[in-house]
């Protein structure tokens, strides 16, 4: 590692008594893309927060271009040329692209006023350099997730960043956008930019990274060129054991129709969607981000105005009544865990019963039956092996995978017959993913009808026997049996024959 641009040496970090990083040494070379992988809680984020000045290590050294540096605050790391592109973008939605790029370091004209023109021309130049067609005057709130990401990268370049840390950059992107991001990363790399790429999507890690560093329980367990590592090997080294089959064997026994949707439309979101879902079946709902899949789920749940017919077990649901949808037996796992799924300030137990509370208390002012509520918490903790100190632990102290399990428990607590899961494994590590797949499989085996919305093709193919693909707010087609392939889904989702390999 002689030509390291940045080197983290024997880094140790603990929070209160828990040791999160144990003597980790890892470096990134000039113009190198380093993949950093590990399960949730392995220490990836903490390590990168140390490199970007958010946390200070308890022990160890940080060297940038061979010189020891001490980062007390993010500005120190920025000055050393290290920039973090966070998973959740740090952009002000009501400011323009140019204003965001220079936020906190605005160029001034004579007289101390903002030099708007300079900001605009410089961000336009940077955007052009990145090959992005984004108007520097556009408001951030008008941009797509992919465009926001480019603005974040632009922000880093404006401060002469020489090392970019990309934290799960592809979670919010469509396959086509991922392709574009990778092209951009390769272009930056050719100019000598170093990058750290954090991701749970191991196939992508193999595709884009030069070298891969694997963390497990705060220790660096493996480091090797990406060319010599298969995603399967990465996964097993992350978990520390062989991962047999990630997806459990499908044992589909289809029963009666439990969910019937006919001609469902929601203005501005989707139109004329019909589907039938049988007991014991896992139906996939695929499509690009923005194709209207989540909106269909929200309409079924009565969370968004819609016309058309929704029947659950033969009973028609009235639109706009989420309470009725739950009472009729529909469970819903939202794609946006912290935005609309769970309350991080609530305890595990309080979250689990939030949607089913009417069955724990008679009337709005009736006392909650704490004993039954506790019993439910115990049941879910056992069933999902949720790792929390107790059911009273606040959710914010749990790892992402465990939060997701609580979220899933919440959608299952009303004992639904139909379960709609929207991106059930988003931001969850391989081990937890596998557990969630098994849980869904078990639920289907019990006769629950499952509608699986997912952007991960691998997941859709592994879990579903039948897949409905949406494109631009309409059902583009249905695939099953031999026709159910990655290419088939991409063709329907994009309307382009070549799909991602374009």
């Amino acid at each position, binding site marked *: 590692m002689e030509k390291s641009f940045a080197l983290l040496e024997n880094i140790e970090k603990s929070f*209160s008594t828990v040791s999160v990083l144990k003597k980790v040494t890892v470096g990134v070379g000039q113009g190198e893309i380093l993949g950093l992988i590990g399960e949730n809680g392995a220490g990836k984020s903490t390590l990168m927060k140390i490199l970007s000045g958010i946390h200070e290590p308890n022990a160890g050294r940080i060297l940038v271009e061979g010189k020891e540096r001490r980062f007390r605050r993010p500005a120190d790391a920025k000055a050393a040329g290290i920039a973090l592109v966070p998973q959740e973008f740090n952009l002000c939605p009501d400011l323009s692209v140019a204003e965001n790029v220079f936020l906190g370091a605005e160029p001034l004209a004579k007289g101390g006023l903002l030099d708007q023109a300079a900001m605009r021309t410089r961000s336009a130049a940077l955007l052009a350099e990145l090959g992005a067609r984004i108007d520097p005057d556009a408001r951030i709130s008008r941009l797509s997730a992919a465009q926001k990401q480019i603005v974040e990268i632009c922000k880093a370049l404006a401060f002469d960043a020489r090392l970019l840390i990309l934290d799960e950059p592809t979670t919010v992107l469509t396959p086509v956008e991922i392709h574009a991001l990778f092209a951009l990363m390769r272009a930056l790399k050719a100019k000598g930019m170093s990058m750290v790429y954090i991701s749970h999507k191991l196939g992508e890690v193999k595709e884009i990274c030069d070298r891969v560093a694997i963390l497990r329980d705060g220790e660096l367990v493996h480091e090797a060129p990406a060319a010599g590592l298969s995603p399967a090997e990465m996964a097993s080294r992350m978990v520390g054991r062989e991962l047999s089959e990630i997806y459990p064997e499908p044992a589909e026994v289809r029963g009666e129709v439990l969910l019937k949707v006919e001609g469902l439309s929601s203005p501005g979101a989707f139109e004329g969607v019909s589907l039938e879902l049988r007991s014991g079946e896992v139906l996939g709902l695929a499509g690009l981000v923005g194709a209207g899949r989540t909106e269909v789920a929200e309409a079924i749940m009565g969370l968004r105005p819609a016309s058309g017919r929704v029947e659950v077990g033969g009973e028609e649901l009235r639109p706009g009544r*989420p309470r009725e949808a739950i009472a009729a037996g529909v469970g819903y796992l939202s794609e946006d865990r912290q935005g609309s799924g*769970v309350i991080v*300030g609530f305890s595990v137990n309080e979250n689990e019963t939030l949607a089913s509370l009417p069955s724990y208390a008679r*009337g709005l002012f009736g006392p909650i039956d704490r004993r039954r509520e506790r019993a439910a918490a115990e049941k879910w903790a056992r069933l999902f092996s949720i*790792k929390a100190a107790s059911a009273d632990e606040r959710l914010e102290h749990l790892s992402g995978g465990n939060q997701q399990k609580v979220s899933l428990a919440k959608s299952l607590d009303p004992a639904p017959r139909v379960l709609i899961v929207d991106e059930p494994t988003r931001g969850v590590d391989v081990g937890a993913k596998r557990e969630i797949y098994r849980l869904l499989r078990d639920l289907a085996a019990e006769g629950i009808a499952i509608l699986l919305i997912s952007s991960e093709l691998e997941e859709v193919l592994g879990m579903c026997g039948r897949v409905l693909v949406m494109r631009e707010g309409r059902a583009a087609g249905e695939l099953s049996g031999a026709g159910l392939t990655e290419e088939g889904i991409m063709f329907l989702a994009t309307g382009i024959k070549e799909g991602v390999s374009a």
Partner: protein
Amino acid sequence: MTTIRKAPRLDFERFGSLVALAVLAAASAALSPHFLQPQNLLNILRQVSYTGIIGLGMTFVITAGGIDLSVGSLAAFTGSLAVLAMNAAAAKGLSEPSGVAVAVAVALFVGAAGGAANGLLVTKGRIAPFIVTLGTMAIFRSLSLYMADAGEFRSQNQLYGSIGSASVLGVPVPVWILLALAAVLSLALRRTRYGRYVRAVGSNQRVARYSAIDVDRVRFVAYLLNGLAVGVSATLLSMRFNSVGSSTLGQSYELDAIAAVIIGGTAMEGGRGTVWGTIVGAVILGVINNMLNMVGVSPYLQGTVKGLVIIGAVFIQRRRQE
């Protein structure tokens, strides 16, 4: 795995205000031997019970993510109508006890109606609570002033006034009512579905909506409860003086009520709150006033001390959370 456990320490959110109260009380006792006399302590409790009762309702409103600035004006408006109705009843020959019943019924009804108006404007009108209650604050006060021509309404009912200054087992009636309401509302906030929903709505409205919680109903009921609390407080206040001053009754009560809630550890941004904390907050304000009076600080400076305490309390809570 990653579950980071906090080292055990004093739960500041819950007991911080209690510690502050103990310190204040000790200081007051040291400054003046008069402080610990039962009569003085009961006086403090009586003085804080009027804003304390409003603070109880305010705890629900703030925990649900709202605010209500109209409570002081609504108290004046409510009290005025109650006394007017009682006097009208007396003119028709109703007995004094019946008159008291009329006044209480009118006060509760008007208070609830005022709270409901705020609640409807916030939920159905989709107007920010600060704006809605800023508007109704002006309206209720102006209506009271207009009705009384900026003067006061005197009650002709001697029984009404005697209830307000009565004591049961040596403890003033308003204090009993404050404690009884606190006991009931504390249970409601901690143990009922509604209380859980109030915290859910205040924590994250979107999650609440996605959990099939009727967010508008939860917020509406919070304003309604607060209006009822104002009705109770207005009754007790008008009983205390056996009259209602249209310009003075409830003047700046919104500040005292909100201050009691915040000092008691309820989060201004919603989601977290306790009823007993609010009581402690109200008593802290009362003890400070009492102490300043005893050591002879100008009454004009008392607002400065109160302001510093509010800012200090929130400052400490912030730091504890980080």
